[in-house]
Every structure is written in C-alpha cells, then in structure tokens.
C-alpha cells in the first residue's frame, strides 16, 4: 500500500485513497472535445438529463403504484393523480420525458447519420447506441403496459402476439412470455419487474459502455475532419488555447451543453405542466378489458414508422413481420451498408444528401400513415412507403456509397 500522509484537504484525502485527481483528468478535464461541433452534439447530454429525470420520477411513481391487475389502474389514475401531493407532476413528467426522450434519440441518431459519425473507427459507438435504442424501446413498451388501460392492454396483446409467427415454437412461446393464455396478471408483474429493475440496470451498463466507446475514436466533428487529439491537447495544455482544435470536456465544453440542456428543460417543464396530454392516450383512461378491443389501436408516435412497415404489407402477415424485423435491426448495420470511407457531413456528399432527406421524408410518411386507419388507399400508401424504406437502406445506400467510393479512387 502506498504511504498515506496527513491530507491537506478533502480532495487530497480522497486522492490518496481513490486517486480522484487522475480520475477527474481522464473523465473531465483532459477528456478532449473538438471545438467545431454545434448544438446538435449536445443531444447526448440532454439524453443523460432526461434519463435522470425518468429515474427520479419513476422512483416516486414506484412508491404508490400497485402491480396487480385489480389495483394497477386505480393506483395510477386515482391514488397517484388525485391523492398523492404532486403525484400528477411525477406522472406527467415520466410520460412526457419518455415521449420526448425518443424525439431526442431520433435527433441524436440522425445527426450521427448526417455527419457520418458511425463509420471508420466509430462503429462501436454506433452499435452501442443502437443497442440503447432497442433497450429504450423495450423499456418504453414494458412501462406503457403498467397503467393497465385499454391501450396498454392491447398494445401488450399485439406485441406479445408477434412472437407467435416464429415457426414451430411460436404459439407456446407467446403463452410462456405472457405466463397465461392471455395477457394477464402474470404478464403485468413480469413486465413490471423488467421495467423497474432489469432493463434500467442493463441500460445504465450500456450507457457506460456507450461513453467508453467514445474514448478512443473520439467525438466526430462538424467537418468530419480528422484531428490528432494528442497534438491538439498538447497545444491546449501549453496555453495555446486559441490555436488548439480541442477543448476539455470540463469545464469548457459542458458549460455550452448546460446552456442547451437548460433551454431544453424549460421547454420540457412547460410541456409537463401545460401540454402533457400528447404523451397520454385518451383510450388508456378506460380500464383494460380483455374481451373488447378498442376500434383502432396504434402505438405511441415513436413506434409508428416501424408499426406501419409491419402492417404495410397488408396482404401478407409473414412479409409484414419479416419487413418489421428488418426495419428494427437494419440501422445497426449502417456502418457496413455505407460502402464509402468518406467521413463528411451530408451536404458535402451530394448523392448521400439526397438519400438522407428521402429517408427522413419516408419515415415521416410512415409515421403519419401509421396512425391512420389501414383502410382503402391508406393501405397502398403504407405499402409503397414500406417498400421504399427497405429499398433505401438495403439497395440505394450501398449503391450510392459504392459509387462515391469509386469516384474518390478508394
């Protein structure tokens, strides 16, 4: 053991025992961030803030929520909303944060695509990010079910039923997942466990992993420029702050992120207090009834695009399921579907730029039609948009990026 001296302060005391100074250096003061990034890069920090809010509001909800099919609905809609002081705040905050969280995740993700931040050494950042997306989806889905309203119930019924399409074991698998022939108390309690313990713990672990994957390739920047971080850091440490292309994460970079996060929080609390209803579906204020499906069921807005891919193939359930499966994992493969080595913002890659905006437009169409009833001409629009989605990712992207690579003599 190292020799312990009399400490000259709390920091020194900690430093002798847990090496807090080197730790701070590695994590904060000597973790280098490029200067030329814009507010869109603050979405990561915004997500950390949101996740924290979700955990805190979730803990307060957890104290009054009852995971029992007979009590769940009232524990949310009566106890928490009417009896608990500020119970409404936790509930609305939880619902609004969950909804907004997906908005920010999508922005975070599409900023990454726009600037090519998923390629050339940054693949692991992308993969862990997409893993987080899947985990957040599972977290959102398992949480959506807990209030035990009609939408909760039927969302759970439909999603668990998806597994019945798996050959041979499908139907038994569904019963196994539900713990009953139908979505029931056993289903509620196991999803409760997933939502409040298992998934959050895994999410936290993967978030740590996601941060760690940034360590070696570093954060990308607005020009896709390759920066020699060691050299630039030397400049900075030598006091050449103007010339250096990087700044430390703390305190310089975070001060800007705090600004963005504060601005964002103001909007978030405005929504929570005055416009919370967008995050709560009116049908979910009817208690779950396992013998009556609501006339038109749809998921929350953030799942609509993949839901529309699922039902876009209206003439065949199997094709729809396959397409849905592909849509849910295809983004993970993005670093390999993009065959070009160029790391540059989309506006410097003409064909990619077109592809990018067509993709966004298509996903918006899918999202809108995902909410409309699947009848008449809607079914065909959904079908075309679903085909286009698969085409863009599986065919168009590899082709145009291959051409780009050729042009660059790669």
């Amino acid at each position: 053991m190292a020799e312990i001296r009399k400490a000259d302060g709390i920091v020194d005391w900690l430093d002798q025992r847990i090496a807090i100074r080197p730790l701070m250096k590695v994590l904060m003061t000597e973790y280098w961030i490029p200067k030329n990034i814009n507010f869109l890069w603050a979405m990561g920090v915004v997500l950390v803030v949101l996740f924290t809010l979700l955990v805190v509001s979730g803990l307060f909800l957890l104290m009054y929520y009852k995971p029992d099919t007979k009590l769940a609905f009232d524990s949310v809609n009566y106890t928490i909303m009417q009896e608990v002081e500020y119970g409404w705040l936790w509930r609305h905050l939880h619902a609004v944060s969950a909804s907004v969280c997906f908005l920010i995740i999508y922005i975070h993700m599409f900023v990454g695509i726009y600037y090519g931040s998923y390629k050339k050494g940054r693949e692991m950042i992308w993969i862990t990010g997409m893993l987080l997306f899947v985990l957040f989806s599972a977290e959102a889905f398992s949480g959506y079910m807990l209030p035990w309203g009609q939408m909760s119930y039927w969302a759970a019924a439909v999603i668990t039923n998806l597994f019945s399409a798996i050959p041979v074991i499908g139907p038994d698998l569904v019963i196994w997942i539900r713990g009953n022939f139908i979505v029931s108390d056993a289903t509620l309690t196991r999803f409760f466990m997933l939502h409040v313990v298992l998934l959050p713990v895994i999410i936290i672990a993967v978030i740590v992993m996601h941060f760690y994957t940034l360590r070696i390739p570093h954060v990308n920047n607005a020009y896709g420029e390759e920066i020699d971080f060691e050299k630039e850091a030397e400049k900075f440490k030598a006091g050449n702050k103007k010339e250096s292309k990087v700044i430390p994460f703390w305190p310089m970079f975070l001060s800007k992120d705090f600004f963005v996060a504060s601005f964002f929080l103001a909007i978030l609390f405005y929504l929570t207090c005055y416009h919370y209803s967008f995050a709560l579906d009116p049908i979910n204020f009817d208690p779950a009834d396992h013998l009556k499906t609501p006339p038109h069921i749809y998921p929350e807005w953030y799942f609509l695009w993949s839901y529309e891919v699922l039902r876009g193939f209206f003439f065949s359930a199997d094709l729809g399921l396959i397409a849905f499966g592909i849509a849910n994992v295809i983004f993970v493969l993005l670093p390999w579907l993009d065959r070009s080595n160029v790391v540059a913002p989309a506006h410097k890659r003409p064909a990619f730029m077109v592809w990018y905006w067509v993709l966004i437009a298509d996903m918006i169409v899918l999202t809108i039609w995902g909410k409309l009833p699947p009848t008449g001409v809607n079914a065909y629009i959904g079908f075309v948009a679903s085909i286009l989605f698969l085409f863009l990712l599986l065919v168009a992207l590899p082709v145009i990026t291959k051409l780009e690579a050729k042009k660059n003599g790669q």
Partner: protein
Amino acid sequence: MGEKEVSRRDFLGMTLGGVAAVGVGASLVAMKSSWDPLPSVVSAGFTTVDLSSMQDGEYRQVEYRGNPVYIIKKTAEMKKCEDRDVVVGNADYSVGIQICTHLGCIPSYSADTTEFHCACHGGKFDACGKNTFGPPPTPMTIPPFKIDGQKLVLGEEGPEYLKLVNKA
C-alpha cells in the same frame, strides 16, 4: 514436473468448466420454468354452454380461458362450411376463438353482414370464421370441444372435434 503441472491445471480447468456448465444449465432450466404459466392457470377450467336456448341466426360470446369464443347458430340461408361447422342436434353452429389470427385483436361481429371485422388492420372473416380479406393468414381457431346432448363443453377434445381438426 512441468508437464504434470500443466495437466493438473488442465484438470482444474475442466472441473471448473464442468461445474460451470452444470450450474448454468440448471439455472437456465429453473429460470425458464419459473417464467412458465402457473399450474392453476394451465388447469383453468372448462366452459360449458347450453345451446338449447339459442335462436336461429343468434350470435353469442362466451369466455374460455380468458379468450372470447363466438357461437353462431346458423340459419337455413347461411352457407354451410362442411369443414368447420359444429352440428349439435340437427342445427349447425359456427364456433371459434374470436381472436384475429393476424395479431390477436378481437374482431367484432356484425349480424347484418354476418361478417367479422378486425379493426386493428382491417382483416375480415365470414360467418364460418374463415379469413376473407386483409392480413389474417388463417381462419379463426376452433377451440377443443365436446358435445354433451344440447351442451357444448369447451376445453375437452371430443370425437366431433377430432374429426373436424383431422379434416382441416
């Protein structure tokens, strides 16, 4: 000596591997079984329906293992489905689990059109329970049943049920 040490380590390694494999296997079995439906759920009772009071063309819904089951007493005009109709006495009944075979919503029955309509993705079924339009890939499932005089017992596989299933 050197060689012996290696083999001793190999032995330790193999022991560790073996114990770990048994442990992991046993835990997985335990985890899988804990997640299984409880015995009380599996043995959930049978549902007996008395058909004698049903009118021609009447539609009725009963609950079987938490699922809705429809029973329609067919009128003379309604088309027969040799492969699906349940004959009790001298009347034809259409019986099935009223759950859409697409993704599990409950289609609603309209007595006017004698059709089932699934609101979730627009699937349609005829009065026999056969899928006629939309994503549902198969007809609605016929639950196991036994005919007991004028009564229908759901949950038990009677000879009439086995005959229907073997034909289908």
